[in-house]
């Protein structure tokens, strides 16, 4: 009895032992992965480029440099003297400013698409998985049906019918992006459903939707974050695909896909910088997201521990 007390006193006097949470473990694992850290640095650099770019660009993205118009192949070269660091496009607009703008739009589309998918897909999947039975059957059949449609054509149809705007693009991409996420969330929910703490919550009379929001969704987060990171690049690819066809964002707005398309069209004129700059940012960003996603998967996926 006395001995216990003195041990307790000892413990109270010493510094509190820090617990290692699941997230701290995951963070440590993530930062040990060199490719993932490199990817993260690249992404931060690209994001900084998109945010700071407009303030340091000497030219506006809509202004035409009349000195180079008509002689873009010579005068529009990338150079420090003219202030066109990335050169100009075929119309004499500064490519640095346009690349900055394209980066902003492409990143925005990617992040908004991923956000929609996280919110809608996770809720949808968790509800289907938790309730199971007929509800699950109907809900997942709907996902199957939507998945078997060549949505890119439907998306283009939507854009043509309702006008090509950034908002419509978000709606269209949001409509399809959550399908995979719903499947993943459902699968995870099925394994969580049998856990004792869920049973305990149910036994104490917690309502189903509270269980989903308080107990299921927080435990899905690891998988959801991994998948969302991998979803951002595919959203960027979708948008660039549509913009490449000239059906996406409209001038004077631009995106990587539109810039790559413009650059590819001018390729034969020897103005390669119009293709290489947007392509460079497109490629490094996708690499960044893939490596970070892989790193997160290794850090958060319970399978590989």
């Amino acid at each position, binding site marked *: 009895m006395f001995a216990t007390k003195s041990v307790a006193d000892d413990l109270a006097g010493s510094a509190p032992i820090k617990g290692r949470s699941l997230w701290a473990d995951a963070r440590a694992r993530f930062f040990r992965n060199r490719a993932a850290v490199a990817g993260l640095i690249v992404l931060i650099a690209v994001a900084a480029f998109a945010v700071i770019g407009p303030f340091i660009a000497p030219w506006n993205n809509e202004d035409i440099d009349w000195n180079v118009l008509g002689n873009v192949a010579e005068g529009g070269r990338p150079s420090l003297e003219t202030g066109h660091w990335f050169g100009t496009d075929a119309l004499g607009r500064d490519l640095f400013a346009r690349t900055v703008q394209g980066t902003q739009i492409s990143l925005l589309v990617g992040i908004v698409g991923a956000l929609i998918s996280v919110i809608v897909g996770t809720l949808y999947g968790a509800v289907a998985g938790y309730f199971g039975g007929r509800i699950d059957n109907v809900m997942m059949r709907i996902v199957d049906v939507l998945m078997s449609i*060549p949505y890119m054509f439907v998306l283009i149809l939507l854009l043509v*019918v309702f006008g090509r705007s950034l908002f419509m693009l978000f709606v269209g991409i949001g409509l399809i992006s959550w399908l995979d996420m719903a499947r993943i969330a459902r699968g995870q929910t099925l394994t969580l459903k049998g856990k004792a703490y869920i049973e305990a919550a149910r036994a104490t009379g917690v309502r189903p939707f509270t269980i989903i929001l308080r107990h299921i969704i927080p435990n899905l987060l690891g998988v959801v974050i991994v998948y969302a990171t991998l979803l951002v690049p595919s959203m960027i690819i979708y948008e660039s695909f549509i913009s490449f066809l000239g059906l996406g964002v409209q001038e004077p707005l631009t995106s990587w896909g539109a810039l790559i398309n413009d650059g590819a069209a001018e390729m034969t004129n020897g103005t390669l910088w119009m293709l290489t700059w947007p392509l460079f940012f497109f490629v490094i960003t996708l690499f960044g997201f893939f490596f970070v996603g892989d790193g997160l998967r290794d850090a958060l996926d319970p399978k590989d521990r």
Partner: protein
Amino acid sequence: MSVYILKRLLVAIPVLLILIVFTFVLMYAAPGSPFASERGVPPAVLANLQAQYGLDQPFHMQIWRYIVALVTEFDFGPSFIYRDQDVNSLIAQGFPVTLTYGFWSFLVAVIVGGALGILAAVRHNTWLDYLAVGISIGAQVLPNFVLAPILVLTFTLWLGWLPGGGWQGGQWQFVILPVIALSTSYMASIARIARASMLEVLTSNYIRTARAKGLSARRVILRHALKPALLPVISYLGPAFVGMITGSVVIDIYFSTGGIGQFFVASALNRDYGVMMGITILLGALTIFFNLLVDVLYAWIDPKIRY
């Protein structure tokens, strides 16, 4: 088995109907008449035009006539822009082209990707494995619309080996670049999937047993490991098919191959609703049919599937 196929067909038909109704409603709701561009047309002429295309009918009659014509005679209706052509003749013109390079791309993606993935797993942690992994990571960031300009830049502008566009009735020089551009990213995905599943299979107990009883390495791989390792690849064929169908739009635009995607984008830019609707439905039907085929194939090969 036949019950399973029948069941899947019963699901596929409503899906197709939903797609048709959805696209039709979208087109019907679209603002502006197809004849809005012709200013100064007398009302009587306009009424005649509308009657000619059946646009004076109420909505349910229009959609009914469309579906009936589609189902009974494969008639996709008229084009609103090209007066002398209907959607069927546009499809007949473009579809063989799309089918040709699509077929080759699919074959290249499956065979090269599958072989690369299997080889990489069998020769795990050798230069071949690293090469395969490198290719599949690189190809992730090179979707067809990025790869196409790079290919033309390299093989047409710098090396001058291959033409950068055109079709010429499908001579081989004109097919190579479109096929590479279309198949590469799917080839890489298939290689990645095949490698991962082959690695998993190779560490399983029954493969160890097969090795322990003294079978040759070739026999272990070909006879015991290959079939289960390729199952995940089969389930990826559906998405790969959808991706290639979608990608054909880029190929047609970039290489001017004259396939069906070219008409789709042209009709999207012209607001030629008849053509857009026809192509969407045709490709949707193809996709649904192909997914059905893949599912049946999967159920037939995998003994674990219950149906």
